[in-house]
């Protein structure tokens, strides 16, 4: 190995001074453009270290002159979006919910907002498709315990269901007829038979006949003499095809014996009014939403003022 550097004649370039079996390496200088690019990156890096968070310290890193952080960046984006949405929220809160149907564009925005909020606050019980499960109502269907128009849904959302510390909450409680000894197991069996005839799950029988009397005495107060329920009390309609806990004998026996009811938080103390209104609009839009009784009061003028909606969908159904 020769350590003597020599100049390679054909290229005029100095060698690095090593030689391996007659093979030498040229010490070709870096191209000028490369060197300048390298210097430029150094200058860039110095600027970057000064301006942006760069040097890790024990608990955090240097903040940089710009004070930039990815969290701060995110917060700014969220704030910007909130600001964009503010007019919609304002408009939502200031619009009478009974007249929301009259402004299709605002309604649509409310529905989309509600779709997002639902995924955060409601899916835990009602499911991501709002289809519920045993004990948690399906919000897509046309059966409502406490009412299915926009106003009723919003009331339910604000005040919740069976909140013990709240006066305006929706409240009712079915007695535990079996557990509290009001009815004997045999009586309960008769009652189950009768209730099942109401929705056509069972044919009339002697047991059902005995159950009819028990129903009139114990149940009709809330569920109505014909079993159609009462929305004022959240008493379910027993004659339809939908039930919260199931209409098979075992489920019904359990319900009558032990009494079953659900609880929903009052979102009025957790969410702002605009979000609640959005949620109401979304739940109402799922297919089972009922027309407000007051909607007829909305004058044509109001509807005209609202103008055409975001989407040009014209008339509704046509009878064939």
């Amino acid at each position, binding site marked *: 190995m020769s350590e003597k550097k020599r100049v390679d004649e054909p290229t005029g370039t100095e060698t690095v001074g090593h030689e391996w079996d007659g093979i030498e390496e040229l010490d070709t200088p870096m191209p000028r453009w490369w060197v300048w690019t390298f210097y430029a990156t150094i200058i860039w890096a110095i600027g970057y270290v000064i301006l942006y968070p760069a040097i890790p310290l024990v608990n955090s890193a240097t903040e940089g002159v710009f004070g930039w952080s990815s969290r701060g960046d995110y917060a700014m984006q969220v704030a910007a979006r909130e600001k964009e949405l503010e007019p919609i929220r304002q408009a939502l809160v200031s619009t009478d919910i009974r007249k929301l149907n009259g402004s299709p564009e605002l309604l649509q925005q409310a529905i989309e907002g509600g779709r997002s909020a639902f995924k955060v606050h409601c899916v835990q019980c009602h499911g*991501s498709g709002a289809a519920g499960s045993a004990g948690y109502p399906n919000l897509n269907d046309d059966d409502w315990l406490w009412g299915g128009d926009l106003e009723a849904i919003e009331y339910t959302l604000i005040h919740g269901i069976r909140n013990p510390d709240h006066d305006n909450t929706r409240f009712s409680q079915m007695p535990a007829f079996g557990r509290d000894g009001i009815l004997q197991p045999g009586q309960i069996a008769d009652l189950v038979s009768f209730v099942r005839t109401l929705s056509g799950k069972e044919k009339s029988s002697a047991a059902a006949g005995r159950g009819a009397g028990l129903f009139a005495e114990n149940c009709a107060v809330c569920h109505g003499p014909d079993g159609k329920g009462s929305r004022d009390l959240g008493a379910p309609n027993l004659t339809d095809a939908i039930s919260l806990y199931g209409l098979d004998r075992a489920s019904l026996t359990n319900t009558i014996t032990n009494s079953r009811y659900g609880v929903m938080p009052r979102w009025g103390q957790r969410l702002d009014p605009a979000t609640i209104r959005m949620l109401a609009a979304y739940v109402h839009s799922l297919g089972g939403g009922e027309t407000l009784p007051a909607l007829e009061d909305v004058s044509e003028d109001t509807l005209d003022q609202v103008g055409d909606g975001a989407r040009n969908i*014209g008339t509704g159904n046509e009878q064939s």
Partner: protein
Amino acid sequence: MGLETSVPVMNNPENFPDPEVRLYEKRKAVHPQRIDGKFRRLKWVIMALTLAVYYITPWIRWDRGPYAPNQAVLVDLANRRFYMFGIEIWPHEFYYVAGLLVMAGIGLFLLTSAVGRAWCGYACPQTVWTDVFQHVDRFVDGDRNARMRLDKAPWTAHKTVRRLFKWSIYLFIAFWTGGAWIMYFADAPTLVVDFWTGQAAPVAYASVAILTATTFIFGGFMREQVCIYMCPWPRIQTAMMDENSLTVTYKDWRGEPRGSLKKAEAHPGSFGDCVDCNQCVAVCPTGIDIREGPQIGCITCALCIDACDRVMAQVGRPRGLIDYATLEDSELEMAGKPHSPIRKTLFRPRTILYTSIWCAIGLAMLFALGNRTRIDISANHDRNPVYVQLADGHVRNSYTVNLRNMENRPREMIIGMTALEGGVIWSNEGSREGAGQRLTTTVSADSVARLRVYVAAPGTGPEREDFALTVTAADDPEARDIDEVFFERPETD
């Protein structure tokens, strides 16, 4: 076939003056000389035509009524529509554009197999703009010799001013090239105002900047290098050409051995027609010597034909020492036979095949365009929940329905359903009360309406039932579309 005999060994490396092979050689600037002749005039006409098409097209108006833009040719990327006179293309119909591109490709094949690299020589934007820039050179710095002198001259103040002046003209042309491009992508009159008042979209300024830069560089400086080193088309064309394709040919059997007039006079009979005046090289915009035979650098602009014809006229020899000729004709001519008739050259299986493919695609597209429906339904069954049990024992399924109205007027549409026993249909605009087997809705002009459609049917029946949702234009029962969907019920115990 016959290539070896028809083209003498002019492009053999031994014939080149400098046998030293280098891996890299600095570009030698090309300073083509001014020339006039029939091909130069043809180039002027085609240049005027192509530039006119490029600059004027976006300004042609086309009345499409109040619901669509009135620009004849508009690539509306923002709204995802492509307008071309009476035709409007939606993104899902992009295959029409693909078809046009295929036609353009096959058209180039046809052109190449018939008349060689005519595209390169006359119509290619690189050729047209290079031509423009070379005329700028001539206007500012004078003709070939003056430009070569100036090129070699040291950088004096005078030369600097000249160069800056010339480059600013380059930049001006380049800017107008880029500026015209963006007019295809937005309403041109509005965009011009927006552009100069700083209100146009950033992408408009970026496009102009990029196209200005590419035009400035490609047209002003790279020129023939784009054709020789960057463009794949010359290579493809080489493969497309055959012995019946027209190409610019130096008739060496007639011209060689070359010698000056003086020499020829001194030794009559020992020299060919070529007087070695080098005019063919002087006028060449890519700086090649056509006498070395066909080569990749030759874009067949035929300016050397003009130059040679003029010289031949001056020295009293027949024209066409350099001329358009097919390889086959060259062979015939060499053998002293007449050229094959032009119809035999033009109408041969290859060109006929290209023409029929080209026509077939064109006709198929026209047919498809004439028969396309401008109404469309696409329905998606809700997955969550799959079905909803209703209070009266019926089952409801929900569908997200997109109705497409591709005409430039609002249209009333009827959504119907096929064969679902006891089924009724309604949408988010209506309710189940009074729902029937169809519903009507109005879709605004040239847009897609999204509807939530509900279908309810009795709860007894198969777990999954196939049926279809249909859409029909209220004003035209022929305009209809159908989408197959299904109806789900709860599992029976």
